[in-house]
């Protein structure tokens, strides 16, 4: 049973004094007259203030129009800023003053005696309800729907299926070719040169000194049909570490070149470019959610919400000393999706 706990801070005497069980509503407080109700000078002053505020709005509008015609944005930051400021202040005065005038008028000049209105219960009366039910019943009888189950079923089936004529083409066409297997490959191939983003200059291994970071795109990116789509998967980071600091998995020993390693720049969390390189700790930091990867140890995650290390791009050097890819990445780049490992 419930454990009703009554307050017992004041002990009520038992002499059965006849006081009511609860307090009663004392009713509306009295109207407290305003200055403008009592003093005609205050009333006049308030009226003048309202007029002045409307006048201020007109000034604002005029100022706005003058600024519009006489202060164009121009070609410098300073002129653009001035135009924005003057137009904006004009707009502010024009609008705000109307509002202030209206509010001041309502507060100081209008009749502000509080009034009361009754609420009626929202529920319809029993007669209305009964009449409504009766009408629905009549209508149902008139519809001849009765106990015709097949009729009902046919109607429902038709209505449920008809929207497919809109939904299917709308959804079906919106996903282009629906070929989600494209997510698993990038444009990197054997022999694709690593080039600098955005200029496209190829990179010589000798240029990559210890402590430097190159933002890399594949050679020929700008000649593809959809450069930005390809770039979103193909961006790579290139760093050189002292080979003594580099820990490599046995099956990846041939993927680096004299301490130069290349990793995908697309974060394995939700896909932002992992662009921050802390040279001294050889950590890569993604600015979106702070996933941190250790370049010296297979780009594995050392902090943050990412789970998987960044995919590594196997690289080597061609006859002229330029860095080239050995193949595409050995796994899909970017965020995890359902069929990623299939």
């Amino acid at each position, binding site marked *: 049973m419930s454990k009703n706990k009554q307050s017992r801070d004041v002990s009520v005497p038992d002499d059965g004094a006849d006081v009511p069980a609860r307090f009663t509503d004392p009713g509306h407080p009295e109207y*407290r007259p*305003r*200055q*403008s109700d009592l003093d005609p000078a205050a009333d006049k002053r308030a009226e003048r203030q309202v007029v002045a505020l409307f006048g201020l709005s007109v000034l604002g509008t005029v100022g706005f129009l003058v600024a519009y015609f006489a202060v164009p*944005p121009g070609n*410098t*930051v*300073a002129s*653009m*800023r001035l135009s*924005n*400021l003057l137009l*904006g202040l004009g707009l502010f005065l024009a609008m705000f003053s109307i*509002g202030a005038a209206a*509010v001041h008028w309502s*507060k*100081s000049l209008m009749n*502000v005696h509080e009034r009361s209105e009754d609420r009626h219960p929202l529920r319809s009366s029993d007669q209305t309800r009964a009449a409504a039910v009766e009408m629905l019943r009549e209508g149902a009888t008139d519809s001849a729907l009765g106990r015709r189950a097949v009729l009902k079923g046919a109607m429902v089936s038709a209505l449920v299926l008809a929207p497919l004529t809109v939904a299917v083409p709308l959804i079906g066409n919106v996903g282009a070719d629906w070929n989600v297997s494209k997510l698993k490959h990038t444009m990197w191939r054997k022999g694709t040169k690593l080039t*600098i*983003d*955005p*200029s496209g200059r190829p*990179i*010589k291994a000798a*240029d990559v*000194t*210890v*402590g*430097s*970071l*190159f*933002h890399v795109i594949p050679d020929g990116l700008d000649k593809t049909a959809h450069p930005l789509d390809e770039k979103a998967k193909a961006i790579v980071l290139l*760093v050189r570490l002292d080979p003594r600091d580099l820990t490599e998995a046995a099956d990846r020993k041939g993927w680096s070149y004299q301490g130069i390693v290349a990793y995908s720049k697309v974060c394995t969390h939700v896909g932002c*470019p992992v*662009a*921050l*390189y*802390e*040279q*001294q*700790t050889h*950590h890569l*930091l993604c*600015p979106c959610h*702070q996933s*941190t990867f250790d370049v010296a140890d297979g780009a594995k995650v050392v*902090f943050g919400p990412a789970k998987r290390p960044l995919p590594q791009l196997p690289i080597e050097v061609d006859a002229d000393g330029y860095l080239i890819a050995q193949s595409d990445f050995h796994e899909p780049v970017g965020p995890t999706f359902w069929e990623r490992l299939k």
Partner: protein
Amino acid sequence: MNALAARRHHRFAPIVLLLLALIGTGSVYAALAPSRATAAAPSANDVGAGQNLFRANCATCHGMSGQGTKSGPSLIGVGAAAVDFQVSTGRMPLAASGPQAPAKPPQFDAQQTAQLAAYVASLGPGPAVPTGAQVDASKGDVANGMALFRTNCAMCHNAVGAGGALSGGKYAPSLWSSSSRTIYEAMLTGPQSMPVFNNANLTPVEKRDVIAYIEAQRAGSPGGADLGSLGPVSEGLWTWVVGMGLLIGCAVWIGAKSS
């Protein structure tokens, strides 16, 4: 009770006393505080003078011949550019250990900095201090500079160089008040956490374009106050503080009973 004794009991007396004590202490300190480090003994050439400065101020951490110790890396091959950057921004000598060496008022003047740079440059070949033409922003292409800045710099220093966070208490500082020379040197030498942008990665012309972009940002924003250029978080803060603050204030005025 005479006049002075009466004033001793005035309710502002403690505050006046405190102010006098503070001003007094400050004056005594200013008068007696040691001035900036001076060269131990004047030498005939810069390298020699630099070596003396180095031994007095840097050798504890960097070794007597700049070869490095447990506390500080080797400076052989870092070049005059690195020294000019670190010393003229006050990062070196390091005042306290921490995740990062912050910029602070430089301890050495321009001549002493040049002497230190000459000495360190003599230890091994390294990047030189850039010439005036190399860092002249008016010769740079702002549009190319922005393209390069976005790809190489914005992720640490923020889109307009307002600075940003790195891990573990480190940060990429704001570039608002950096000189064009120190910006060039920082790109070239990669101080602390910053990567090295050698001349194959960002050519000297490209570096000058980046400097032109950074300096162009100092004109401010055409939309008004830039709120620190920190992005949507500061915009949201001002929405609540200024926007909702003003509007709730107006709402309270509207709802208040008139007097």
